[in-house]
């Protein structure tokens, strides 16, 4: 290798580094757009979710446990309007189980012959039954506070599942100088630190059928994973397809690169 060759190589290497730095600056400046925390409120710690990273997947047993927590605890106040019962098949529930789960709920039916509203048993095709007939009833039952729908919660809050998990475990006694309002609770992770939702979880509040000890920590993890699934039911299919698309595009790009190089060689070598 002669001197001039290595020289140009070195130059192109520094040029590449410059380009990389430029790309990094752009990415960081984009990143800063999204990386905004609430002031005065703790940032939720990152948990090691099974669905983290580009190849992460849900754990079916965790989703089932999370569903149990939702069904037995959260569903008392929170709806899941965007999810249908039959979607639970993705969690590993059988058709009969789903029918039983749906059948336990009453939903508004068609008007009867006298024009009166009726109530029917929910079928797998129904969306999760909402605990309240309307928003006013929800407020009236909750001291004026509205329990938000949980379908998209993992996407509608910064830090997603980490936030839900942190919120559920973030209840503590308010500092003495904190002016906590009546009927409110202190939470480290909630915006403004005052939340109307009482601490929803206590140890052994549910009894897991798989024998997992139902600690507050465990239940918070499980229900956060479940709500990630309700927010992004396509997550696994998306990543699976994504890997295939990336492999295809890599080959395509490499092929085009080789074609380009071969075509241009005639120009680059016809010097002089």
């Amino acid at each position: 290798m002669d001197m001039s060759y290595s020289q140009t190589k070195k130059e192109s290497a520094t040029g590449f580094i410059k380009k990389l730095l430029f790309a990094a600056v752009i990415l960081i400046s984009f990143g800063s757009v999204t990386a905004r925390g609430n002031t005065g409120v703790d940032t939720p710690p990152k948990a090691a979710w099974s669905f983290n990273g580009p190849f992460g997947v849900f754990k079916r047993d965790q989703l089932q446990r999370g569903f149990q927590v939702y069904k037995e605890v959260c569903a008392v106040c929170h709806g899941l309007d965007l999810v249908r019962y039959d979607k639970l098949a993705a969690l590993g529930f059988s058709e009969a189980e789903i029918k039983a789960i749906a059948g336990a709920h009453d939903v508004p039916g068609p008007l009867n012959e006298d024009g009166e509203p009726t109530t029917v048993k929910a079928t797998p095709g129904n969306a999760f039954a909402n605990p309240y007939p309307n928003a006013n009833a929800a407020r009236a039952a909750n001291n004026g506070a509205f329990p938000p729908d949980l379908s998209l919660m993992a996407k509608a809050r910064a830090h997603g599942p980490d936030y839900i998990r942190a919120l559920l475990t973030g209840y503590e006694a308010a500092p003495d100088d904190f002016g906590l309002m009546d009927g409110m609770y202190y939470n480290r992770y909630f915006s403004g630190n005052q939340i109307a939702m009482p601490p929803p979880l206590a140890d052994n509040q549910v009894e897991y059928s798989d024998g997992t000890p139902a600690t507050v920590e465990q239940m918070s993890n499980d229900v956060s994973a479940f709500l990630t699934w309700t927010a992004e039911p396509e997550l696994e299919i998306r990543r699976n397809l994504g890997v295939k698309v990336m492999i295809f595009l890599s080959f395509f790009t490499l092929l085009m690169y080789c074609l380009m190089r071969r075509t241009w060689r005639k120009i680059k070598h016809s010097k002089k």
Partner: protein
Amino acid sequence: MSKNEQDLQPSQIAAAKEKGLKNWVEHRLPIFEFMNKELIEYKTPKNLNYFWNFGSLAGITLVVMILTGIFLAMQYTPHVNHAFESVERIMREVNFGWLLRYIHMNGATMFFILVYLHMFRGLYYGSYKAPRELLWIMGVVIFFLMMATAFMGYVLPWGQMSFWGATVITNFFTAFDINFALGDSVVSLKLGTGIMEWLLGGFSVDNPTLNRFFALHYLLPFAIVGIVILHLVALHQHGSNNPLGIDKKTEKDVVPFHPYYTYKDLFGLGTFLLVWAGFVFFAPNFFGEPDNYMPADPLVTPPHIVPEWYFLPFYAILRCVPDKLSGVLLMFSAVGILIAVPWLDKSSVRSAKFRPLYKKFFWLFIFSCLALGWVGSQPPEGIAMLIGRLTTVYYFGFFLLIMPLLGMIEKPLPLPNSIDEYEQNKCR
């Protein structure tokens, strides 16, 4: 054929010669010759670098956006009570609806990245200078239409940020209200409010707003296509500028577009699609705001209303002056000033490669644009406000002061005689 050739009329002989469907069509509509001339033989400077990839990439992205958009529109409901739910229906029930929507959503971001790089390329290599002034101006018009389209598209999912973003931005127009004292009372000419209400179709962002934004979001991309075609006609009139900024002179300076730039563009396309797909499949909400996954609620204002990232520099310019009217005018000027660039730049040399001073100011300009983007994402106070003001002054100073002045005081480096000569010297 039993007939002798002598029996045929001359026109019949000519018709018989052009056998085949291709010739039949070509005789009536010279489309193949056109494609051959503009896409295959089209003489292109042989020294274009990768920054010349972004134009074709933006064109392809526009097509992808229109196609995904048409299929999304088939499933979308532009009504305040159903819009949010219909988008979630696309995400959950429509086959590969999530893919369509994530491609479209991230496509807007990708489109702006491409177009910003395309514009910076033009600014660096002086691609706006004679005889390409109209080419540049049509580019600015496309950019402006893109911003309008993107803004209205962001309203359609009817999330919290959709609603409040629309409320804040349409409120800009109230800056044009005229208040003056008449004796003891203040007279107010609600000119701006009138414009705002006319745009909204009511007194606030509501169903009529959503309906018309949907109609316009569907319409404007086709207007963009029209101007893109004019942009291409103007481009092919004199051909691409190049990194040296000197005109092509001989056959040695150019290569036919195909296969040289078709393959280079396809390589660029592959690389670009890898980035786009990376976001679509593995971080689809990276550029989004979590708030937009909450349905719009006119009674609950989000604590921090921010526009999409690609508007942040302009948002920062808007907020850097305390007076609303000045802020709005300044923001629109920030885009409008680009139209004057071909005449503000007095230097006869196109490429920054041969303009040592301009090059420095150019990179400072890039830095100030990125800084403005950061400022736009911050609450308007403290150090962010100060940086926002300084960079706004530089943004306008770059165009209004530095560009004209440099033309007079800068001593450019000697230009090479030809593209070919320069390329050969580089290789030696």
